[in-house]
């Protein structure tokens, strides 16, 4: 019964080839995904090293920015690898997102449990024609499942399909 409801809900053929496949994020977003971890790792390492050198009054304070740069490069690498590992899939039951290699997670938001959907586009994402999708549920730990670096067209498709809910009884929300 459910496949029918959702398929009938999506009148035009979806722009993505087959919505049943696990799909990766567009590769052009990898650099964007690298910025966050690079900045965090770099700054943190620099602060910790700088603080340690200042507190112990050891010579060689120049190591701090150098360590920061090394850590930033490592952080960027981590960001790129993590970005490459993300897979998402939209099927008749809802949205599923897979992440990680060492710590793998697969999160599933059933379409009937979607409260609302946000689509965010920062200036950098707009320049690359990307978008961030945030799916909100009524849960606590998984109150917001976000998927950054989606292709804009895919993101809009996801938003439309997830936000369109079957009519539910009045007191559901």
């Amino acid at each position, binding site marked *: 019964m459910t496949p029918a409801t959702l398929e009938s809900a999506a009148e035009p053929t979806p722009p993505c080839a087959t919505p049943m496949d696990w799909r990766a994020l567009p590769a052009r977003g990898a650099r964007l995904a690298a910025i966050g971890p690079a900045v965090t790792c770099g700054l943190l390492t620099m602060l910790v090293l700088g603080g340690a050198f200042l507190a112990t009054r050891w010579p060689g304070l120049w190591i701090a920015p150098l360590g920061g740069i090394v850590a930033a490069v490592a952080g960027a690498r981590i960001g790129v690898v993590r970005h490459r590992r993300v897979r998402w899939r939209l099927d008749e039951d*809802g949205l599923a997102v897979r992440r990680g290699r060492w710590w793998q997670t697969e999160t599933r938001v059933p379409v009937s449990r979607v409260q609302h959907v946000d689509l965010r586009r920062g200036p950098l994402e707009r320049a690359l024609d990307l978008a961030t999708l945030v799916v909100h*549920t009524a849960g606590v730990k998984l109150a917001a499942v976000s998927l950054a670096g989606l292709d804009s067209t895919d993101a809009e498709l996801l938003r439309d399909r997830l936000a369109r809910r079957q009519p539910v009884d009045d007191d559901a929300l």
Partner: protein
Amino acid sequence: MNPAEGERRLHPGSWLFVLLQQLKQFIVPLLVLVFAGRGDRNSLWPLIGVGVLVVTSMLQYLTYRYRIGADGVTIRSGWLHRSVREIPFARLHNVALHQSLLHRLFGVAEVRLESAGGVRPEAQMRVLKLEEALALEDLVRHRGGEAAARSDAAEAPDAVLLSLPAAEVVRLGLVSNRGMVVVAAALTVVSQAMPDALLGDTLRSVAAHIFGYAGALHGGSPASLVAALGLVVAVLVVLRLLSVALAWVQYHGFRLSEARQRLTVERGLLTRSRSSTPRRRIQAWTLRETALQRWLGRRSLAIDTAASPFAQERGTMKELAPIATPQACDALIQHLLPQAQWPRPTWRPLSPSAAWRLALPGATVSLLATGLACAWWGSAWGLLALLWLPWTWFASRRHACRAGYDLDERLVAVREGWWSRHWRFAELDKLQALRLSRSPLDQRCGTATLWLDTAGADAFAPPLRIRFLPLAEAQALYARLGHLLAVRALRW
């Protein structure tokens, strides 16, 4: 229609209670002002601060109006920034009535109306005259949800599901650590407020006094050992007595009742509080049994509601049975979840690797402690910390044997713990999202953890998750639940 028609104000004295509340919030800045301004010519600042608070609370009283309509409550408030808020009765998940000692003195009460989600309640009426508060509470309890459809049952009196006699309240105090928490909080405050040296001196002089007394009696170390033991025992006894006293204050007259599919909990000796929630708004359940509770033959039953998960201490319904016999807890669950089978006759076991993996945290701590102790004192006495290992091993074995989960068409339940046990369960319809996660260790052992998220889950309650599941089983369960949730409409 004139919008002002049928509008009511709060109790005329309500600005006083708002002011008290604000004073409580701003007590630190005010104290800073008082102490910083001492000896200065700006000693008027605190007075000005209080004056501003008085004016704002008066304004709040003067601008706050509410109207009770057919389907909900309308609240208008604000002077420069005005707001109108419509709260339909059908959306309310929880109604709470709160009466502190001061409220009781003035014959008033505070009413909170809470809907799902959000940190703050939908409406917080501080304060109403007691009769008006009771009338409003009664109205919400009757109009909320299915009450209208069941007019025949409207005359049914409240059925008391559980009440705590004095002996039970004393037991509750004995098994709880309330006294410890209060003392710890008090010590923290004291240590913050007092200079360190002074606190240290005080403690030292107290200790010296006690040990000096013991030394004067007999002299020598056995006496001081006895004194130390006596001190420990005395502290423990005092802490438990404090716990009992606190439980008495908080849970005196505890009563869980049901009327028209609606649960009501009332309790309190000095501060009375009563909150009520429709039965179907319960999101998840936690049944707990600590070792102390087990020795007394008791358990406790708590629920999550979607109403303000962060404001539970403010009276949102939480504890259905603070303390009750296992049979009473089971009967309560059977009564409130009639379609679900409880207690479960069988539990599905976890992966065999659970036994040693449950021991990992304890073993790590034990080894670390051994290493640190040996390095610090440089003697073999640190090896004593290794004694923790067999206990950890034993406890995790028992834990792994007991832990399990079960699932049927209505309910998913997880059982964990051995020394301190808990059962956590929720109706399938109340699940919101799923997550399957695998750590590197999970990948080596071919297992996975399944997280099931519900609305309003308490941060302090054990999570609803199934650990150490064999991978194939976890994936099958994940797929099945994912499909089941998608076809079932959300009911909360």
